[in-house]
């Protein structure tokens, strides 16, 4: 089968590698260079999330594949099993942590409750008076851009062809792609993996940009051990319509701290929104006052590809013959790219999949003739 993959972010790169290994003739078209889109702007937290059973299955499988790759990843991938520490501010959040622990444990995800004393001992930079938290020790942190490049190299080793600087401007009849210079390439199937830009090629696809800000600090080795996320994060991240911020601090392999996070729906400008940035950092300082004296060296923004139900779109798009989607990963595309690739390859080639492919089928969000406005 001839497959054209549009976009070489981590999702497109993983998909190309999986398809090439499965025997497809994969050709990748990347407008700029591999891994330079959202893949270069995200946090790289490989984290099991359990908003829904499907999300739990996809993130857990994604993390499992990451673990299996760990030994082969290039050093620049900076893959480290830091674990996630979900921080509970009060008793209510502690109860939430317990419930989360129950759900994770039920699917065999290792995790354990941490009391206030242990929290203070493990992460002394956190303020006093926090209730405790939930430690998920097998979650990890990765630096995604070199991984996208590496996955693409794997795809090439398996026979894929990569065109860099090749912007696809239109999808033609059944699988054809047209480039900016007018060239048309044929394929049996085209996989659109252009992240938050999906709607530019596929009209009415229910993907909306959700902007996020991040700040990187200078090196302060040892200040933070695990990726720290406030339990309120899930609650805030859920409400797609409103702007939100949450305490989210990641220890990089370099000793730097990557500080997030913010969410703004339908904002596409890549500039820094000062008010949002300060609100986000103020939230983080509520949990970690000592962060205040650490020098910030750069801030940037990225666009998540949000879907109405919080699950990615992986599979055929009913409105266009030969068009398959691999987008809509919101804030989890790094975690789930390897599992997404498996789901995509299984669905495309009619093979068995490690996890059900059904929950991710784009058809679930397609109603003919209706424009999609989420929430």
């Amino acid at each position, binding site marked *: 089968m001839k497959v054209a993959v549009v976009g070489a972010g981590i999702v497109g790169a993983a998909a190309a590698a999986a398809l090439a290994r499965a025997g497809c003739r994969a050709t990748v078209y990347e407008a700029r*260079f591999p*891994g*330079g889109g959202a893949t*270069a702007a995200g946090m790289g937290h490989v984290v099991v999330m359990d908003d829904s059973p499907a999300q739990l299955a996809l993130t857990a499988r994604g993390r499992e594949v990451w673990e299996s790759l760990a030994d082969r990843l290039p050093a*620049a991938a900076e893959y480290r099993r830091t674990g996630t520490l979900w921080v509970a501010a009060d008793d209510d959040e502690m109860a939430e942590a317990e419930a989360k622990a129950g759900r994770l444990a039920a699917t065999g995800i290792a995790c354990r409750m941490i009391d206030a004393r242990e929290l203070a001992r493990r992460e002394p930079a956190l303020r006093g008076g926090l209730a405790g938290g939930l430690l998920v020790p097998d979650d990890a942190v990765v630096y995604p*851009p*070199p991984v996208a*490049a590496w996955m693409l190299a794997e795809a090439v080793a398996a026979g894929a062809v990569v065109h*860099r*600087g090749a912007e696809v401007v239109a999808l033609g009849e059944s699988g054809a792609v047209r480039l900016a210079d007018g060239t048309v390439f044929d394929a049996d199937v085209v996989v659109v993996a252009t992240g938050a830009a999906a709607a530019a090629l596929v009209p009415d696809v229910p993907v909306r940009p959700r902007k996020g800000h991040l*700040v*990187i*600090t*200078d090196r302060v080795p040892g200040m933070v051990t695990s990726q720290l996320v406030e339990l309120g994060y899930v609650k805030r991240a859920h409400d797609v319509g409103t702007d939100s911020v949450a305490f989210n601090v990641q220890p990089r392999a370099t000793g730097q701290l990557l*500080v997030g996070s913010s969410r703004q729906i339908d904002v596409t400008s890549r500039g*820094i929104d*000062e*008010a949002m*940035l*300060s609100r986000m*950092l*103020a939230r*983080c*300082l509520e949990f970690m006052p000592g*962060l*205040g*004296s*650490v*020098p*910030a*060296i*750069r*801030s*940037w923004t990225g666009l998540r590809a949000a879907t109405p139900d919080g699950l990615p779109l992986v599979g055929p798009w009913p409105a266009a013959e030969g068009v398959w989607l691999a987008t809509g990963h919101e804030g989890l595309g790094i975690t789930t790219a390897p599992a997404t690739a498996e789901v995509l390859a299984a669905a495309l080639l009619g093979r068995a999949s490690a996890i059900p492919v059904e929950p991710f089928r784009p058809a679930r969000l397609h109603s003919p003739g209706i424009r999609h406005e989420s929430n």
Partner: protein
Amino acid sequence: MADNATAPSGAAAAIRGADPIDVLVIGAGPAGIAAATAAAEAGSRVLVIDDNPAPGGQIWRGGGAAGAAGAALRRLAACGAAVVPGTAVVSVGPGPAVVVRGPHGADERESLVRLAPRRVVLATGARERFVPFPGWTTPGVVGAGGLQALVKQGLDVAGRRVVVAGSGPLLLAVGELVVQRGGRLVAIAEQAGAWRLARFGAGLLAAPSKLAQALSLRRAIGPVLRPGCFPIAVRPAAAGLVVTLRAGGPGRERDTELACDILAAGFGLVPNTEVARALGCRIGAAGVWVDQWQRTSVGDVLAAGECTGVGGLEKSLVEGRRAGLVAAGREREADRLRAPAHRARRFAARLERTFALDPRLATLADDETIVCRCEDVAAGRLRGFTGWREAKLLSRVGMGPCQGRVCGTCTAVVFGWTCDDVRPPLVPVPVGSLSMAPER
């Protein structure tokens, strides 16, 4: 820091007191001082900020009371402009507004301040261009302008053996300073060839003040000046450093080793355009693009001095004065200074021709030579990328606190890349300060 843990720093208080501002001058070197003085004397309310601890810029750093520096600083003090050193631009917008912070020893609880002047004059000057060559990260290897700045900050070079190398008139001034301070000037290696220097020297006859300067320098440094000669490597030795200098054209190279304690190497200057870029100003081949009135491509933003193109003191003074006058609405007076401004630009063009870099300099770095000093990225890691952004994302070049200010110019020389991705904060700022919405 007990002494100012609670009180706002002096800089912030002074900034708060300066409202409203007609003209904000960013940079207090000769161009900024001239701009501020001209605008204030024309009746504008002027605020000058500079990230260094004292006004003067690079050339008048620690200028003291004597000479042109003293006169200009006294005039600045008398003109009514508020001068707030130790204050850096952190971000920009909306419009010509900028957000600043007093960074020096200031508390992280100190908030940022948004300044919303009617007009901005960018006088952000230039920095040194560095060329990576094997060993250039060894302690004791410093910029040429870097050594000058450090000596003016109190570095003692008495009795130290110094080799000055690289390119540009700055090398002579550094050599002279070393001699004045009791250092042992071993050599000045100027990469430009003797004939180009001679032609440049002849041209100086048209610029009497520069000629006088050149003649006074000549006695001190003439005997050790080596034209057409550049450093290709430096290594630590039992005591100090050993520098290898290369002379002769391609195919006729002759290498010499010199022992020294300090190697001061700088390869000309590059304009500081970060604030201009953040404001969205067009950048030309020489620096920030300006029209004949020193106006940039962005409304109400003017630029003067080295940031518009490297050209020395006289260019900075005349451009600064003109920018200050225009910012204050005195176009007619500024018009009278067109001829000297034009001459200064011509001199700048001559400088550039004379001290154009020998292409061999781009090939000095071997695979192990560090290019990005913040992140320790060597040249070998950088080969094969298509440009700055890809190289940055995949190798970490430019990801450290200097954000490409040093390695960006290195990769421009070695690979021809442009590093233009400015993002706030324009200088590192404590997270605490960024967490507060700017005042005003």
